[in-house]
């Protein structure tokens, strides 16, 4: 039984549909990510979970109770806001104590819980500081301490790291994950940064244009995006337009690329095979594309010509033209490769993914 369950929730603002029929389940103890480009409805979804926004339709269940119409203050979920939303007129102690005072906690319990929350975010002794004296990273810790001090049944994060600079962001990220795990909390985390989502989350839902496109573990999403919109958002995919050939059989799909007319094989079950008269998209990650200069000719090997080599530090991007089909490959060391060189491009069949929803 999931801890939190959204069933078909929708929300419109005026004529724009911010969230369209989103359903998802979050399990107890899970670190769950909502990932998507800006304006995709992920924050609105989070705000509906928090009770700050009411869905136009659909229901939200928490521990099997319908909380759709329960106001935020009665849900007992902690939330960390993007701009932290620290109370500027209160010091660090009072900010963290705010939720406990709203619950009329006894004095001794209150100071003990504030102290332990500040301890947890490594800000002991900062009680009396004014919040505007703190650095961005410290403010962010106070915001987290404030949210965990109420011992929330669910912890919600709205892009909490986006205001920090890169090095601090990575450091805080791992601390955050460690903290949530240590306290045994369940978290829903909204971000547009896929790397952040991969690093933090047990499972991730990808949202695009108000719809929930795919839910899965980070690795699964990365390697096998189900949908072209997800593949595009998760970035740097070679998208290959192809037609299915009639020679396809169970467990082995055979496709012909529209550009270059290459034949490609990949393992697909018959159930998800598309009709033959419509073009489909195949996707493969640039780091899975192999480039050989020794004339290999196995399955999915295409002859090509190196068009461009872009050095980008640890890796280099090599762009190859295979009879009109342009592919990108990521290589660690472009040694021995030169522009205009003939080569063989190999697309390993277990790395190729057939995209499901062709609407994109």
């Amino acid at each position, binding site marked *: 039984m999931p801890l939190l369950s959204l069933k078909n929730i929708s929300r419109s603002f005026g004529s724009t549909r911010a969230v369209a029929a989103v359903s998802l389940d979050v399990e107890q103890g899970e670190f769950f990510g909502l990932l998507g480009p800006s304006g995709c409805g992920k924050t609105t979804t989070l705000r509906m979970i928090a009770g700050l*926004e009411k869905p136009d339709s659909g229901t939200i269940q928490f521990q099997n109770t319908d909380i759709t119409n329960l106001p935020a203050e009665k849900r007992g979920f902690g*939330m960390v*806001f993007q701009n932290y939303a620290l*109370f500027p007129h209160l010091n660090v102690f009072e900010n963290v104590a705010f939720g406990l005072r709203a619950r009329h906690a006894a004095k001794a319990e209150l100071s003990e819980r504030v102290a332990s929350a500040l301890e947890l975010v490594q800000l002991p002794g900062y009680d009396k500081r004014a919040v505007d004296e703190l650095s961005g990273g410290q403010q962010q810790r106070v915001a987290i301490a404030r949210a965990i001090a109420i011992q929330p049944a669910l912890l*919600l994060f709205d892009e909490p790291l986006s205001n920090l600079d890169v090095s601090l962001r990575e450091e805080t990220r791992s601390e955050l994950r460690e903290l949530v795990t240590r306290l045994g909390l369940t978290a829903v985390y909204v971000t547009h940064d896929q790397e952040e989502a991969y690093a933090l989350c047990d499972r991730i839902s990808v949202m695009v244009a108000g719809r929930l496109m795919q839910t899965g573990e980070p690795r699964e999403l990365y390697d096998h995006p189900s949908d072209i919109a997800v593949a595009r958002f998760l970035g740097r995919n070679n998208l290959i337009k192809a037609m299915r050939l009639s020679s396809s059989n169970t467990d082995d799909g055979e496709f012909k690329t529209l550009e270059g007319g290459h034949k490609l094989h990949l393992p697909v079950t018959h159930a998800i095979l598309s009709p033959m008269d419509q073009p489909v998209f195949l996707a493969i990650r640039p780091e899975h594309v192999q480039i050989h200069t020794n004339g290999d000719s196995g399955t999915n090997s295409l002859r090509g010509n190196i068009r461009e080599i872009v050095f980008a530090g640890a890796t280099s991007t090599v762009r190859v033209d295979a009879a009109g089909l342009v592919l990108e490959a990521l290589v660690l060391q472009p040694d021995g490769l030169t522009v205009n060189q003939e080569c063989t491009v190999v697309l390993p069949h277990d790395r190729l993914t057939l995209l499901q929803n062709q609407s994109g």
Partner: protein
Amino acid sequence: MNKRSAVLLVITLLVLLYGVIYPNLFLVNLSLQRDGVLTLANYREVLSQSIVLEAILNSVGLSVFTVLLCAIIGVPLAFLFERFDFPGRRIFAALAALPLVLPPLVGTVAFIFLYGETGILAHGIQKLFGFERPPWSLQGWAALLFFHTYTMYPFFYVLTGAGLRRIDASLAEAARSLGASRTVVLRRVLLPQLTPSLIAAALLTFMTSMASFSAPLLFGGNVRVLTLEIFTARQRGDAVMAVTETVVLAIISLGALIFFQRYEGTRKFAAATMKGAPRRRAAIASGKTRVLATILAIVFALLLVLPVATLVLVSFAREGSWTTETLPSAYTFANYLRVFSEPLAVEVFVNSLSMSAIAAVAALLWSFCVVTLLVRRGRGTVFDESWRRLLSLLVLVPWALPGTVVAVSVAEAYSGLSSLPGSLMLVGTFWILPVVYFLRFMPLVVRALQASMEQLDPALDEAAGSLGARAWQRFTRVTLPLVWPGAVAGTLLAFVIALGEYVASVLVFVPANRPISIAIASELRDFNLGAAAAYGVVLILIISISMVIAGKLEKIRG
């Protein structure tokens, strides 16, 4: 809409219905009635009188010239003091807004003492050169325009200054780098961006001038303006004429408001959100210009302070010691003793302080109802956009109407017989002035509170909600602590303006609520100049203290 919003809405609408909608509609209806028939006869009669037409022309003409003069003085001063640095700059800058807090009646009295034909300046020149007659008289157009420019130029000075501070300095630098000369930069880059500020200043000046009453009353001479005509018509007991003229005045004022706001709407500039180059005041290097600017600053600072200084001086003059002399010959505390010890005088202070306080506090409480409805919150709004606009328009109506109109409309609507259920008779009671003060000055409080509320990050309220705080806890523990400085500053402003109010008071006051301004006017009429001045000085002191507190509060907010 939840229950709380519904309660707030009912309170808001009741106040607007009884305070704004009903009195004004009552007034319009009254002006259209003759012998129980709906007709335009009153307008035909009133508008066929040359004296009324002249008053309309005078009011509009005076306002147009006032706007022009204030712009000519205020805008260059703002450029000079905002963009350049030189000795004396701070002295003037600190005093520049002084006339804004001077009650018009007190200012008028000070002008008579200083610039009047028997005043210090005219008298001094007459003596110095041995003229037989005073060199000038403070009468008519010139006197009115002089006084209006003194009291209203700060609208242009302050708003232009604020506009200049907002403009990104790199825009001018970009224009210069593209080859534009200083004058082209001014004309094509700076002035267009200043237009919203200039229009706002012109609007404020025009409306204030249309509503001006004290100066035309005391030294308008044969320049009769509408506010004065309405006052004398009521004194004569010609209610129909007064009401009809009041509606005409209201229509002109609202027309001007609509005209200016429409024009303003066409000239809106998005505030630059990119990081702009910080702009520093350029030091004037050239010796001669520097000296000239310094002299200018000192002269203007003196011009600003002199009327107040004169008032202080006269307040210490012994009775009868200032008749043929240039300056009073003998000084005493008697005027202050009189103002603070005579029961009638003390009562006047008690009246003004209590009535202004009642009005200001009521305005503050009511503002919370209105602003809660007006401000867009994170969880969506109570109303949609068009209702919000209508509501804020209704709130602003009493501000746009001259004090004369507000006073006459309330006086007529609540003078006895009324078709409105639950309406009271206010005329002849103490309560009419607090009510009129409330209506006139509540827009200031609403504006101040609204500005504070809009600055508030909606996420704070949401964060409090997510931490378990109920609506009332969120209001008292998050919203209130953050908006009170702004709200109290606005309330203090309304309080001090009400304290010196004369225009509306003179139309509806009764012995039981005689305010300070009425006392000043009657001391002046009895030639108790010292006492009139003493009242004025005490008033200025109370106002100054309040404004200092308000200024401190504004800083807390910022």
